[in-house]
């Protein structure tokens, strides 16, 4: 190739390169800027607000710019429009147009009718109208200004507005982005559903669901999906958050803003109560349970979740028997004049009848309002530690504390109970149970052990008619409509097959024998290393005590 030809080729290539650069510029122009402010669409009137508020409340404006509202042309006045006699009529000093200072669900409803209608009939909306308003703990025990910032701040999700609408949409759909990612973030629910009385966010964190979800930080970003893009399809979230089971759509179940549509239990109540048709869109508790099972079925086999839920249901029913016993002791003490009442009666007899001043009264409040809830909700939400240590252990401890108070006050039955050495005495109430688990047959957990069966009559192996009695109790619960026919059938099948379900029909694995031998060695080591080990010199106190001891 001659030099001149090469020069020509260079020129041609240079032109080609420039042409390619224009393609680059074109592609750049067509780039969709993810995360950058979308082209905000606003009316000329709303532009007045934006121009001024960009300087006055820049956060508010930039949040809105990020929102889907901005992209779709839903501007300030779409939500903040106002009529002359509206309760929140406000003439902005910097603008020619009046605005509504506080948009309510009535405003949201103009576009989001289904969501607002569902929400308005939900328990969330009813939160302010319910017992909360007259709860003695709030009414008599704490000053109102304090509860206004406490309980009321969360219960405000059921705000009742002067315009007759109910609810506070931005409790979950934080303004002004109204981000779906924020709304579905478990932390949003966890703003209120946490703490000693309903540790729901903590229970989710403890559960396998929470763990799997949080193991991939990208999952949080997936929560921003739009429901309408996934109608009839699986949700694009690989592990469930709160909304996945309680609100979001499944392949066959529509999404709902009525959080009660999938709840078969009132488990925040002093008693475990099957939900009535008053809540959750008029559905029976069985229909609500079917809805919840629908969400379970997106990932699990029926045999697993139906057994799990049956087991959780029976645990909830067991709670009622324990609570009944707690109440009985307070009643006995009240009858004997050992504790008073605060003068407030309550048909459920949960706490109001007894007040807050005396130790047993305070105890029974914790019993149901804190510990009993954690026990039941933990059992239904895969939160083992909440069912166990924050739950049943504390419930039992409260019961013992109440009886101890009764004994100290001189109640004869309580004194006798305290004196008794029978290890079965802690089962103060009728028992309910399920012969088997959701997670498979365990050949060791309930293996008969002579050490226990000879001494303790309370457990499954302790007495011959344990399962007969339990069956009678479970059947009674079924007949009282507390378990479904499907559940009762499942229970009976497990009962008929209980020898296998409980693992008794199978030989012990040699591996387990090794572990049991290991435990014996550990016990021997503990005896040797600690229990029987003595250092040669005594304590300082022992010397003092020697001097003080009556000779």
């Amino acid at each position, binding site marked *: 190739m001659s030099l001149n030809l090469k*020069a020509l*080729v260079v020129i041609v*290539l240079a032109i080609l390169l420039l042409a*390619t650069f224009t393609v*680059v510029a074109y592609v750049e122009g067509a*780039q969709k*800027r993810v995360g950058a402010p979308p082209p905000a669409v606003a009316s000329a009137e709303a532009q007045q607000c934006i121009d001024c508020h960009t300087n006055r409340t820049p956060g508010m404006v930039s949040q809105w710019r990020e929102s889907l509202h901005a992209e779709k042309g839903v501007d300030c006045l779409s939500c903040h429009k106002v009529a002359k006699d509206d309760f929140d009529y406000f003439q902005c000093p910097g603008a020619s147009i009046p605005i509504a200072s506080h948009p309510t669900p009535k405003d949201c409803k103009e576009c989001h009718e289904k969501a607002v209608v569902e929400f308005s009939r939900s328990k969330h909306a009813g939160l302010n109208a319910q017992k909360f308003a007259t709860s003695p703990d709030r009414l008599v025990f704490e000053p109102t200004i304090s509860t206004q910032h406490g309980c009321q701040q969360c219960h405000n999700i059921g705000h009742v507005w002067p315009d007759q609408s109910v609810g506070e949409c931005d409790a979950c759909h934080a303004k002004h982005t109204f981000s779906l990612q924020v709304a579905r973030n478990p932390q949003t629910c966890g703003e209120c559903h946490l703490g000693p009385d309903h540790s729901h966010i903590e229970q989710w964190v403890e559960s396998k669901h929470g763990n799997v979800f949080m*193991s991939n930080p*990208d999952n949080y970003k997936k929560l921003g999906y739009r429901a309408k893009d996934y109608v009839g399809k699986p949700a694009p979230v690989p592990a469930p958050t709160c909304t996945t089971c309680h609100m979001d759509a499944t392949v066959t179940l529509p999404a709902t803003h009525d959080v009660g549509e999938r709840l078969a239990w009132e488990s925040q109540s002093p008693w475990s109560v099957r939900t009535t048709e008053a809540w959750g869109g008029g559905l029976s508790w069985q229909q609500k349970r079917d809805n919840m099972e629908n969400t379970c079925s997106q990932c699990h086999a029926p045999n697993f979740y139906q057994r799990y839920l049956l087991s959780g249901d029976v645990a909830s029913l067991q709670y009622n028997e324990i609570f009944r016993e707690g109440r009985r002791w307070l009643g006995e003490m009240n009858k004997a004049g050992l504790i008073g009442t605060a003068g407030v009666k309550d048909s459920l007899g949960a706490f109001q009848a007894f007040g807050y001043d005396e130790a047993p009264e305070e105890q029974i409040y914790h019993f149901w309002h804190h510990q009993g809830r954690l026990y039941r909700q933990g059992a239904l939400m895969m939160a083992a530690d909440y069912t166990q240590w924050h739950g049943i252990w504390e419930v039992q401890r409260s019961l013992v504390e109440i009886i101890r108070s009764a004994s100290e006050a001189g109640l004869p039955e309580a004194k006798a109970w305290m004196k008794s050495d029978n290890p079965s005495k802690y089962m103060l109430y009728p028992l309910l149970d399920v012969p088997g688990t959701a997670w498979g047959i365990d050949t060791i957990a309930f293996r008969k052990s002579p050490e226990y069966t000879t001494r303790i009559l309370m457990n499954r192996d302790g007495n011959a008619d344990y399962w007969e009695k339990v069956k009678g109790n479970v059947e009674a619960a079924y007949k009282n409509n507390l378990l479904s026919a499907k559940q009762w059938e499942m229970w009976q099948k497990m009962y008929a097959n209980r020898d296998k379900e409980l693992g008794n029909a199978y030989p012990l694995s040699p591996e387990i024998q090794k572990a049991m031998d290991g435990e014996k060695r550990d016990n021997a080591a503990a005896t040797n290393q600690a229990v029987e080990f003595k250092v040669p010199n005594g304590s300082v106190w022992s010397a003092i005590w020697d001097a003080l001891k009556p000779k």
Partner: protein
Amino acid sequence: MSIESTPQTKKGWRGWLGERFPIDVKVYEELAKEPIPKHMERWWFALGGTPLLLFAIQAITGILLTWYYVPRPDVAYESVQRITTQIPYGWWVRGIHQWGSQLMIITVVLHMLRTFTTGAYRRPRELNWMIGTGLLVITLSFAFTGYALVNDQLSYWATTVGTNMFAEIPIVGPIILQMIRGGMVVTADTMTRLYPLHIGALPTIIVTFIVLHVILIRFLGVTDLDKRERERLARAGKSAPANGKHEREASHFPFFPDHMMTELVIGMGVLIILVNLTILFPPTLGPHANPAETPSHIKPEWYFYPVFRWLKLFPLQLGLAGLGIGAACFVLWPFIDAFIEKRTGNRDVNVYLGFLVAVGAFVFILWELFALQ
């Protein structure tokens, strides 16, 4: 009389500059116009300038990327995401940098293949060959450390697997691994190690090597293949062809502008390919690195496939030992080649071996590519 009081001997800017930078412009002109052998007119022989051009592009785009890239593992991925999706022309700069690195490896390998098969490394150019092998290793190190910085799943796990190999070095391996990773696994501290390597140490080393490489080329000149042919014919007792082929006068041409123009054509072509690659295949970003979730297929970038496949064929330590021996032979090849020639008189081993290695590497790449699907 001091130099300050000497009158300026030449007028104009040449005089002004010549006084302050006292090297005659003619020296540059002579350097530029140095005659180079005729065979260099062939395209195949003009590949050496391309990696240099690409390195310059990598340096420029690299600096632009550092404006936005943050080497902290908690935000590294997000910063790459920001570059790719939000910063004006960010996708393009990142694309050029990504594709540039791949083209740089390709052109370095092609240049080396040419050097190898034509025997251009022979005495007295053995050292320059070794510098060249060093440049290949540095280029691959650039690629490896750069890939690790993206911090998406593939990048994270490729870094894990890549650094794992250090553990197999006898005795010091585990210590080296610990030093590179800053812990037992790839962590926050790995990134703060690889980043300064990528933008500080490696550029310094590569520039030094490039300078040495070019200086040696200018000192030793490029191999005169026609001269070599004349000598070969003379040894064989034959005379050169009558048409003047292989005569020195007929077989040389000036570096500037003739050869420069060839390089320019190739450079332009490479640029067009590079820009088009970024448009057709813009840079992507996988899911965020997650140490708790091992992807089903961990794989390095394609240019490491031959090594990757090789290591899969043998137990790891054996494979690494083989690689080590291979690398040593590769670096010391000019001496091995001279030894073979002395013993057997055969001067064509490099041609067969170069062909074999190239085909082998290609087959390994394809093998790995299809084995993954």
